[in-house]
């Protein structure tokens, strides 16, 4: 039964006694085979410190709740098996560059406002057919990558352009915009484009590629953003829709 040491960045800004950030260490025993960071956090919360706060939900890497900064990388706590980290010291802190609520919980309001801002829904002008809208497998393949986004916020937290709330819509929101602009069923004209084709949108992306490093689902937001940049030029200069 090996022991594993968890080093957690704790902070409760609402606490009157101790509102400052601090590091705390806990030792968790496990069977040497299977322990994810999320399970580790649960066992700390259950056994040592009931005041530990963190988001959790599906524990199968599809909901995007438990994105954290673990051993120097953006990871989903539920998806990170401790044996893959090759160390017995696990350092966990909340996602940096986002406003803190408590412990591992960060405020995602700005993230979702920006997500909403790019109009992330299918816009259609023609009447709906009686059955499905026909979409060839080739066209479907174009949205393969962006539809897998789980909105965990890793990319948004990692992007230097987005460090600062005012600056940038962020990779996730723009990837969403891409997901709809590239969808063959979408018929949006200028209304959505006006939201992303500006200097808070795609032109603030300096192709730093941190989002690609950070994404726990191995998506490539930059690819989507670059597609949007080209699409803007295509539409403005050549008047093409897609």
């Amino acid at each position, binding site marked *: 039964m090996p022991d594993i040491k968890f080093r957690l960045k704790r902070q*409760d800004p*609402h*606490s009157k006694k101790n509102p400052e950030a601090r590091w705390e260490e806990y030792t968790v025993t496990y069977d040497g*085979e*299977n322990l*994810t960071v999320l399970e580790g956090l649960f066992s700390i*919360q*259950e*056994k040592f*410190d*009931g*005041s*530990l*706060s*963190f*988001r*959790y*939900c*599906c*524990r*199968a*890497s*599809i*909901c*995007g*709740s438990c994105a954290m900064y673990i051993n120097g990388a953006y990871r989903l706590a539920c*998806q990170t*098996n401790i044996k893959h980290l090759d160390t017995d010291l696990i350092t966990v802190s909340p996602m940096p560059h986002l406003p803190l*609520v*408590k*412990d591992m*919980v960060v*405020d*995602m309001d700005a993230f*979702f406002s920006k997500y*909403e801002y790019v*109009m*992330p*829904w*299918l816009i*259609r002008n023609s009447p*709906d057919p*009686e*059955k*499905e*809208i*026909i*979409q*060839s*497998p080739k066209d*479907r393949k174009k*949205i393969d990558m962006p*539809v*897998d986004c*789980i*909105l965990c916020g890793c990319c948004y937290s990692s992007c230097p352009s987005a460090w600062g709330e005012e600056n940038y819509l962020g990779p996730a929101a723009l990837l969403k915009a891409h997901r*709809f602009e590239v*969808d063959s*069923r*979408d018929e949006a004209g200028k209304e959505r484009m006006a939201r992303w084709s500006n200097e808070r949108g795609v032109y603030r992306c300096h192709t730093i590629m941190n989002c690609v490093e950070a994404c726990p689902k191995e998506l490539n937001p930059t690819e989507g953003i670059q597609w949007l940049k080209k699409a803007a030029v295509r539409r403005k200069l050549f008047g093409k829709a897609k």
Partner: protein
Amino acid sequence: MIHHDVIVVGGGLSGLRAAIEAKRAGVDVAILSQVHPGRSHSGAAQGGINAALGNHPDGHDDTWEKHAFDTTKGGDYLVDQDCAIQMAKDAPRVIYEMDHWGCPFSRFEDGRIAQRPFGGAGFPRCCYGADKTGHYLLHTLVEQAYKLQVKIYVEQYVARLIVHEGVCQGVVAYDMIHGGFEAFTANAVIMATGGAGRTYSNSTNAVISTGSGMFMAYHAGVPLKDMEFVQFHPTGLFTTYILMTEGARGEGGYLINGLGERLMEKYAPKFMELAPRDITARSIQTEINEGRGIGGGGYVYLDLRHLGAEKILERLPGIRDLAIHFEGVDPIEAPIPVVPSQHYWMGGIDTNVDGATSMPGLFAAGECACVSVHGANRLGGNSLLETIVFGRRAGAEAARYLEGLTEKRPNARTAFTAAQLMEQKVEELGAKTGSQDAYALRAEMTVAMREHFGLFRDEPTMKAGVEKLLSIKERVKGIGLRWTGSVFNVDMIRTVEFEGMVDLALTVGMGAVARQESRGAHYRTDYNTRDDVNWLQHTLAYYQPDAAGPRLDSKPVTLGPFELQERKY
């Protein structure tokens, strides 16, 4: 105090669909969700959603009647047939609607929605988007909710209902981000909180699937129906019980036992791996119990290798990711160790076909409700369908209910008192030193559920289980909080929800003891046949504040065009 005409509790598929429908009917509607709606457990659904579209080359003859029949037979005839027919009829329409809203379904060559074979279905009618159908559907609905500007209160843990003179008038919720309890008044409340999988230790469900909607309604006096029917999915990952979709078998995956045989040959020679889940899960468990697990151990293999890398990468990429991350196995190169795991809650809040419960103003939809379309055993691909079909119906029904309402002002005093009661309760919990360890008790309960109310049940085991649950319920009185802070108090939520989960566990336990037959997911070794004479009826469980367990009652099953017959696959 915040007021909305309709409050939807839960932001999963059924909650969102209900809210969208109500919003489209012009009603002021708000969603209260414990997590951001895009993070709901619906997103973890993988395989697909059933609808008789007839897009598959082998499925041109498929009709909604056949879909309804398969559902009824799969549910071992405990299905209310009018509801099943309604669901099958509505299915194509809601699927096309999802497509019009942008859901990225996978496509056939001709550009139509792709369908794959699924368990217990006579035709390939399961529409899918790779193996992330739930995720795609969920995000599509989230997008629509944003588009329609449905008011969404994120990270609100709903803790109790506000009931005034037998009418549901809102909920009390704990604001996880800002702290404190708030009363949300409403003229109609739609419960869409999902299943109670976490009462079992071997569950495929999300950590938040605690059945909170069920026990809130239960405590308010609404009966729970058919709680003893708990579905076990044949293939959960061996160590973590994470779901490996039925789609993997739908695409042609094999189940292999320790002798290297396809184990389903013995149990369902015709349908093989695509037999209904209860049968498949029991077959696997039988193999394991009789020492024919892999290496005599406690698991069997789900073998996908013969499908080839291309098909796996195209159709089952998520399965592959999960197997790699959580089991360290790449399905392209090696078989996946799987074991039957608790998966779905057939029972729930007793509702009619429109989601209305016995309490005026309270509606329910999705896994927390029991319309009784699944009967004793749900077919794969019907759960996503249920959420959307009955979410839609519940939303519309709530809007209709509002129209017929004469008194539209919820009682402020009752709401205020309810919020106060909740605050008081938490204060009391916080004041207790906690002679009992809530988490140890929780672990004890989940393990007891697994051991005593699993795939195979018999009288002595179950009675011992009920005894254990009663003792746990007694000890629950001794638990306290470890932390009383106001913001994001995970400890408080997990403690409060645990109290309710014990009551749910008891409805399962007592219902199972009472039902002296084997039907669908409820399989008893001491009564191993179906008894249509005595037990073709729903179980209803009523909460009794002064007794430990529920009061059990029954309700007839609505029969219809499909004749009762023996289930053979």
